C-alpha cells in the first residue's frame, strides 16, 4: 500500500490498483472469485469507515451494522417497492445514513465514550428489531425479493460490472482514507482523540469534528450496505444482527487500528475466517470472540503491525531550513490587547479566583505570580476559555469574548501553552507543531499535492522545521513527544504555540522543570516574540525569569489580586513579601 512505499508516487500505486481491479474479473478462474471480490470491496468500505472512527478519532461504535442495514433497506425498498432508479435510491440511502449518523452521533457530542458505545449498541439493536418485525415494509426474515442488481442492463456481464463498480468505489474510499491519514485532517482527528483541551487550543471545534467523523463513518457503512443490497438481489433481516457489527469490528482491529492500510488487510482476513468458519459453524461465535480477545490482547497493533511501525519522516533537510523570524500575524497590534475585568470563578461554592482584573498591553510581557493554589491556573483556564467565569468579562483586542468557547478565542489569536504539557503522542514533534497551523491551500489543491507525492504540505513542514530550529530543537523533528525530555517537550509546546501565529500568548509555567541554561534560552525567545509585537501573559514561579523578563507583574494570593506593577515595584510591596517571597524573608 502507498503508506508502505513512500518512494513510489501515490498516483502510480493507485493506477496499478485500478488496473488490477479492471483485470481481476476477466482473469478470475470462476464466478465465485468475482463474488468474493465484490464482498471484499464493499465490506472493506465499511471497515475503512470504522477504522477512521475508532483508530483516528477514538470513538467507539457498536452499531455500524445498523447503518449498514439502513443503507441496504432504504436503497432496496426505494428501488424494489417504489421502482426508483438505482442512482436515486442509492443516493437517498446514503443521505439517510448521514442523517441517522448525525442523530446517533449527537449522543457522542454530549457524552463520553461509554455512552456512545451504549447508544450505538442500542441503535443497532433497534434497527435489527424493526427490520425483523416491520414485515410489511422490510419483509422481515423472509426478506425482500427481486432487488434490482447493478448490472447496467447486461445480465451476463452483471457480476463483472458490479465488481468494477464496488471495487472502484473502494479505491476512491481508500484514496480518501489515505489522504485523511496523511494530511492535516488525520492530525486533527488525533488531537481530538487525545486531548480535547489541546484540540480547542489549536482552534478546533471539537463537537463538530466528532459528529462529522461519526456521520461520515456511518455513511461509509451505509454505502457498504447499499452495495450489499444490490449485489445479491435479496435482503433479509437475518443479515443485520449484532454479529455483522462484530465482524466489521474484528476486521478493523485485526487489520490494525489507526493505519490506513489496515482495513484492506483486516477485511481480507475476515473473509478468509468467514469462509473457514462456514465449515465449523457450531463454534463460529466462539472463534469470533476468541479472535477478538487474542488480537486485542496479544497483537494490539493488528496484522499491519507485522509489517513494521509507521515512521514519521519530516522530509525536511536540515540545511534547507530557512531562518524563522517571529512576526505578528495580520490581525495587527491592537488584537494583542487583553483585558480581564472583575473575573470571579468558584467551584461548588469554593472561590478559586475573586474579582481578578488585569490588562496586558500590546507587545508587552505581563507576568502573573503567586503561591501554589493562588488561582493562577484557574485564571489561565478562564482566560483561555476552558472554564466559564462565574462573573466578569474578558476582552481580546477590545471585543468581549467571555461567551466564546476556547477554539474561537484561539482563532482570534489567543494562544496558550499548558503547565502539564499537552502534546499529541500519536504524531511526531514536527506534526505537533504543524497542528498549530492553518491549512494554507484549498482542499482540492492539497489533495492534488498529496496524490502527486513529493510536495505535499512542503511549505508547512518547512515552516514548522524553521520554528523548531528557531527554538534550537530542529533535530527533534522526527521524534515522538513521549521520547523527549521534559524541557524539550516544553519547547515543543512553545513551538506549536508560535506556529499558531499568536497575537496574545498565554504561557503556563514555561520554565518549570527546565534547567537554568534552558530557562535563559526561553527568556531570550520570549523577548524576541515581544519584540515582534506579540503580547505575552505568563504564569511562573521562577523569580529570576519573571523579574528579568516581565514589563509588568500581577500577584495573586488565594484568588485575590494583591499587587500589580513593574517588577521593581512588586518586589518592594509589603503584601507580596508577606504572601509569597515571605517564606524567604521571614525565615532569614
Amino acid at each position: 500500500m502507498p503508506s508502505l512505499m513512500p518512494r513510489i508516487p501515490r498516483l502510480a500505486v493507485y493506477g496499478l490498483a485500478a488496473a488490477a481491479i479492471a483485470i481481476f474479473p476477466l482473469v478470475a478462474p470462476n464466478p465465485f472469485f468475482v463474488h468474493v471480490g465484490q464482498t471484499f470491496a464493499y465490506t472493506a468500505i465499511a471497515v475503512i469507515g470504522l477504522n477512521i472512527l475508532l483508530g483516528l478519532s477514538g470513538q467507539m461504535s457498536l452499531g455500524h451494522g445498523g447503518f449498514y442495514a439502513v443503507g441496504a433497506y432504504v436503497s432496496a425498498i426505494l428501488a424494489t417497492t417504489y421502482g426508483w432508479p438505482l442512482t436515486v435510491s442509492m443516493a437517498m440511502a446514503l443521505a439517510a445514513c448521514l442523517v441517522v449518523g448525525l442523530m446517533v452521533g449527537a449522543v457522542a457530542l454530549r457524552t463520553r465514550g461509554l455512552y456512545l458505545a451504549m447508544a450505538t449498541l442500542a441503535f443497532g439493536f433497534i434497527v435489527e428489531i424493526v427490520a425483523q418485525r416491520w414485515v410489511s415494509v422490510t419483509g422481515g426474515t423472509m426478506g425482500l425479493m427481486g432487488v434490482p442488481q447493478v448490472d447496467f442492463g447486461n445480465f451476463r456481464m452483471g457480476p463483472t460490472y458490479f465488481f468494477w463498480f464496488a471495487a472502484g468505489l473502494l479505491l476512491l474510499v481508500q484514496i480518501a482514507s489515505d489522504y485523511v491519514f496523511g494530511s492535516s485532517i488525520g492530525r486533527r482527528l488525533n488531537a481530538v482523540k487525545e486531548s480535547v483541551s489541546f484540540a480547542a487550543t489549536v482552534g478546533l471545534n471539537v463537537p463538530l469534528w466528532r459528529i462529522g467523523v461519526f456521520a461520515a463513518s456511518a455513511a461509509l457503512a451505509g454505502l457498504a450496505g447499499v452495495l450489499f443490497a444490490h449485489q445479491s438481489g435479496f435482503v433479509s433481516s437475518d443479515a443485520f444482527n449484532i454479529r455483522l457489527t462484530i465482524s466489521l469490528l474484528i476486521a478493523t482491529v485485526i487489520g490494525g487500528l489507526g493505519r490506513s492500510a489496515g482495513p484492506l488487510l483486516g477485511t481480507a482476513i475476515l473473509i478468509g475466517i468467514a469462509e473457514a468458519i462456514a465449515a465449523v459453524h457450531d463454534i463460529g461465535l466462539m472463534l469470533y470472540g476468541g479472535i477478538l480477545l487474542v488480537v486485542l490482547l496479544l497483537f494490539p497493533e493488528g496484522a499491519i503491525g507485522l509489517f513494521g511501525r509507521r515512521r514519521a519522516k519530516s522530509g525536511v533537510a536540515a540545511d534547507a531550513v530557512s531562518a524563522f523570524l517571529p512576526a505578528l500575524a495580520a490581525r495587527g497590534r491592537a488584537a494583542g490587547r487583553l483585558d480581564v475585568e472583575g473575573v470571579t470563578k468558584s467551584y461548588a461554592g469554593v472561590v478559586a479566583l475573586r474579582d481578578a482584573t488585569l490588562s496586558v498591553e500590546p507587545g508587552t510581557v505581563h507576568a502573573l505570580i503567586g503561591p501554589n493554589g493562588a488561582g493562577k491556573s484557574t485564571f489561565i483556564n478562564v482566560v483561555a476559555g476552558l472554564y466559564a467565569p462565574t462573573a466578569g468579562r474578558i476582552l481580546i483586542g477590545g471585543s468581549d469574548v467571555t461567551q466564546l468557547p476556547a477554539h474561537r478565542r484561539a482563532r482570534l489569536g489567543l494562544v496558550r501553552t499548558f503547565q502539564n504539557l499537552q502534546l499529541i503522542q500519536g504524531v511526531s514533534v514536527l506534526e505537533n507543531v504543524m497542528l498549530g497551523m492553518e491549512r494554507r491551500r484549498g482542499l482540492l489543491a492539497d489533495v492534488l499535492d498529496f496524490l502527486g507525492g513529493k510536495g505535499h504540505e512542503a511549505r508547512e513542514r518547512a515552516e514548522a522545521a524553521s520554528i523548531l530550529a528557531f527554538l534550537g530543537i530542529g533535530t527533534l523533528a522526527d521524534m515522538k513527544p513521549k521520547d523527549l525530555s521534559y524541557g524539550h517537550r516544553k519547547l515543543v509546546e512553545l513551538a506549536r504555540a508560535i506556529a499558531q501565529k499568536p497575537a496574545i500568548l498565554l504561557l503556563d509555567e514555561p520554565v518549570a522543570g527546565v534547567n537554568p541554561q534552558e530557562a535563559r534560552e526561553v527568556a531570550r525567545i520570549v523577548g524576541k516574540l515581544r519584540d515582534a509585537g506579540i503580547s505575552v501573559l505568563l504564569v511562573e514561579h521562577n523569580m529570576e525569569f519573571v523579574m528579568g523578563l516581565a514589563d509588568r507583574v500581577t500577584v495573586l494570593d488565594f484568588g485575590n489580586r494583591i499587587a500589580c506593577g513593574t517588577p521593581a515595584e512588586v518586589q518592594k510591596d509589603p503584601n507580596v513579601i508577606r504572601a509569597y517571597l515571605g517564606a524567604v524573608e521571614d525565615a532569614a
Partner: protein
Amino acid sequence: MIEVDHIDVAIGPVGILHDVSLRLTQGRLVTVIGANGAGKTTLLRTLSNIVTPRSGAIRFGGKPTAGIKPHLLARAGLVHVPQGRQIVPGLTVRDNLVIGADRVAGLDADTIAQGLEREFARFPVLKERQHILGGNLSGGEQQMLAVSRALMMRPKVLLLDEPSLGLAPQVVTTILKALRSLADDGLAVLLVEQLALLALDTADEAHVLQRGRVALSGPAHDLRRDRAVIESYLG
C-alpha cells in the same frame, strides 16, 4: 529505616533519577528539595514501589523492598502521603481516617479508637468535622486529614510529598511543626518540599535534587546558611 542505594529511575525512555542514594533513620526528619521537575515526586513514588527503579536497591527495615506491592509496603509501615492530599471526597472524615488503619494487621478496634483520639487531639478541627464528607474540607484541613490518615496506620516511616501545596502560611507552619514533633518522638520522616527554606528550617538533614541527581547533601542547618548555594540550585 530506609536505605536507598544508587537508584536509577526512568519513565519510558526518559531518565528521571540518576544514581540517587540516601539514608533515613528513626527520629530524623530528612528533606528533599529541588525545582519543579527535578524528580522529587518520582523519588517518593519509587520508595513506595509505584515506580520500579531501573537499577539500584532500596531497603526498608533492612530488607529489600523490590517486588513488594505498594499496599503491602504501606501496611508494613512505609506510609506515603501523596501530593494533592488525595482525600476520598465521597467518604466522611472519619471513614477517611480509618480506611488505611482498617487494613493494617494487628490494629484492632480498640487501637484504632485510641488512634482516632490521638489524631483528634493533634488536629482538633478533624474532630469537629469528623462526619463531614472529605471533599468538603478546606485545603488545610485536608492536609491535616492526610497526615492523620497516614499516622493512623502506625507508620515506621512517613513520606510526605509537598504538604505545603496550596496552603496558607500559618497552616504550613502547623503541619511542619507536627512533623517536627513526630520526628522528635522517634518517627522517620522524609519530606519533599518546594518551599525550600521552610523545609530546611524544619529538617535535620537535606538533599538538593537537581535534574534527577543529588546535587548537594548535608545538615539542613548548614545548607540553610549557604544562601548562594540555595539560590543557584533552586532558582
